[in-house]
């Protein structure tokens, strides 16, 4: 019900106005009436007291001369006061002496007894005021006068008051309603307008909207100003964010295109290397062998040795090219991660190594149930290289032992491949992972020096680190995490 809630503040303001002015008026009326009632009652008591005194004074001689007739006459003068219902004179011993009853109002009724020992008293009872007064003559009590009056006048007065109060209340409320409607325009309208704008902005997410200021500089106006300023800031920030986003997107697109182009170039280069660089090597090796086969009788041992060296170098070059291509392939390969059982992967690679050289006795110690999220194809290359290296560099160790497991290093968990083989000089540890970097004699331990570079690239592509510890003839340990 948006229509209703729209004007809830107006309604609230009007209701508040009515309540406040109504309450104030009611309290004022009640106070006035109460005050008037009290003073009117006091006046009534005073008047009645004077009447009683007059009746008492005039009844002194009838009392002294025991003339009730004269006292009755005196009392009948009360006819002039229409509010008096009845009156009576009592002798000193409390005997009724004379009486007066308003016409047609309980004629012949016995007078009520005066409470013993009372000289002057009055009380309101059953809508009537009763007043009792001792008649004193020459300092001595002579009798008692008693007057009973109704409150008719006071009731009339009260009714009149209530009527006036009702009229005043009604008039004031109407006036308050008018004032409220004027206030509504000044106070509620700008707030209602602001609420409407705020609702639209939050619904349509249109920060270009603005509330109209009242221009009066009052609180609603300040509120509207602040609200507009906030909208402006949001709009500005939105714009900046959008611009930054667009710029970033464009930059990402450009970079992606550059990267794709570079990748494509690299692929073309690799392809070319793979195909064209190997062809001349094949020729050198092939014709070298042809010479050895067809012209062996015309070559001495030295000539044959040279040719063998040419062929060996050529084949080595072929291996280098293959390894380099592998390295480049590892850089380009897409990584598809899944949960890999490293323990069984290591075991399978170890078994492959063992099969290639069944005469060697190696103590493989592979920790069970090691798992990681990684690309299984690339991780196999890691194990082939690390375990293959360990296998190679323990070839001259009598009790070769190769371990794979998990440990903690510098507070981080890391996998490790450890051997007790030839090891390396830690001074050159940082050169281990460079392509074509070798720390050993090729004759002693053959290799191209690309394996660890390939391993490092794979580990890096998994977001991991690889490092090594070792000493000459004390074995080597390669640590990595993924």
């Amino acid at each position, binding site marked *: 019900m948006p229509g209703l809630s729209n004007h809830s503040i107006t309604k609230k303001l009007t209701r508040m106005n009515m309540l406040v002015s109504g309450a104030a008026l009611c309290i004022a009326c009640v106070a006035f009436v109460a005050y008037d009632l009290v003073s009117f009652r006091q006046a009534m008591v005073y008047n009645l007291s004077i009447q009683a005194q007059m009746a008492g004074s005039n009844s002194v001689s009838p009392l002294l001369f025991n003339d009730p007739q004269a006292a009755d006459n005196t009392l009948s003068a009360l006819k002039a006061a229409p509010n008096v219902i009845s009156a009576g004179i009592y002798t000193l011993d409390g005997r009724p002496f004379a009486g007066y009853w308003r016409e047609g109002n309980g004629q012949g009724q016995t007078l009520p007894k005066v409470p013993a020992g009372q000289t002057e008293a009055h009380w309101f009872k059953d809508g009537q005021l009763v007043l009792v007064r001792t008649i004193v003559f020459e300092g001595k009590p002579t009798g008692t006068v008693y007057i009973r009056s109704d409150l008719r006048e006071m009731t009339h007065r009260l009714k009149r008051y209530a009527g006036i109060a009702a009229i005043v209340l009604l008039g004031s409320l109407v006036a308050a309603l008018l004032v409220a409607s004027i206030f509504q325009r000044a106070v509620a309208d700008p707030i209602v307008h602001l609420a409407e704008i705020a609702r639209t902005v939050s619904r349509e997410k249109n920060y270009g909207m603005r509330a109209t200021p009242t221009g009066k500089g009052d609180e609603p106006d300040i509120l509207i100003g602040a609200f507009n300023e906030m909208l402006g800031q949001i709009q500005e920030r939105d714009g900046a964010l959008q611009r930054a986003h667009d710029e970033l997107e464009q930059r990402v697109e450009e970079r992606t295109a550059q990267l794709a182009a570079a990748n494509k170039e690299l692929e073309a280069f690799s392809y070319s290397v793979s195909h064209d660089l190997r062809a001349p090597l094949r020729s050198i090796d092939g014709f070298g062998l042809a010479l050895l086969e067809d012209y062996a009788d015309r070559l001495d041992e030295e000539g044959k040795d040279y040719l063998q060296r040419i*062929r060996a170098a050529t084949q080595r070059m072929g291996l280098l090219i293959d390894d380099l291509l592998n390295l480049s392939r590892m850089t380009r390969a897409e990584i598809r991660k899944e949960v890999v059982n490293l323990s069984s992967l290591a075991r399978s690679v170890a078994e492959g190594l063992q099969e290639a050289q069944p005469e060697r006795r190696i103590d493989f110690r592979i920790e069970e149930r090691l798992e990681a999220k990684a690309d299984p194809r690339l991780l196999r290359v890691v194990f082939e290289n690390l375990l293959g290296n360990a296998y190679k560099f323990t070839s001259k160790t009598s009790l070769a032992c190769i371990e794979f497991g998990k440990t903690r290093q510098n507070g981080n968990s890391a996998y490790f491949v450890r051997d007790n083989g030839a090891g390396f000089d830690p001074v050159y540890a940082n050169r281990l992972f460079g392509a074509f970097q070798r720390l050993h004699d090729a004759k002693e331990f053959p290799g191209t020096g690309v394996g660890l570079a390939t391993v490092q690239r794979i580990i890096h592509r998994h977001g991991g680190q690889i490092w090594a510890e070792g000493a000459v003839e004390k074995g080597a340990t390669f640590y990595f995490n993924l």
Partner: protein
Amino acid sequence: MDKAILLVEDNPDDEALTLRALKKNNIKNEVVIARDGAEALDYLFGTGKYAGRDTEVLPQVVLLDLKLPKVEGLEVLRRVRADKRTNLLPVVILTSSNEEQDRIDGYGLGANSYVRKPVDFSQFLEAARQLGLYWLVLNEPPPSRRS
């Protein structure tokens, strides 16, 4: 008379070495040499330089290099497989490339074998021996369309 071998090879060194390898393995079949893809297609379909050749006589096996002038090896393979005269012809890809994509494409287009030319010529001799043994001796060629 043994059927010919079609060797598609642009590198004269490789050509000489392949011929030597075949000879060393006592493979006496005639070797027809095409120096680019277009020439290979001419030979197979009796066009161009080979216009008028009896295309019913197909080689026993085609040794196909991938990187070739004019028409590339894979394109030659695609056209051979697309033509009903040659779609059953045994084709062995013989190349330097070890790129995964080349192998996928080669087999995808219907190559019968994929052999990488090793740098070590001794290994190549072994490969040629096995190729000859398999494709020229053991393998039963597809039935001729004439019979």
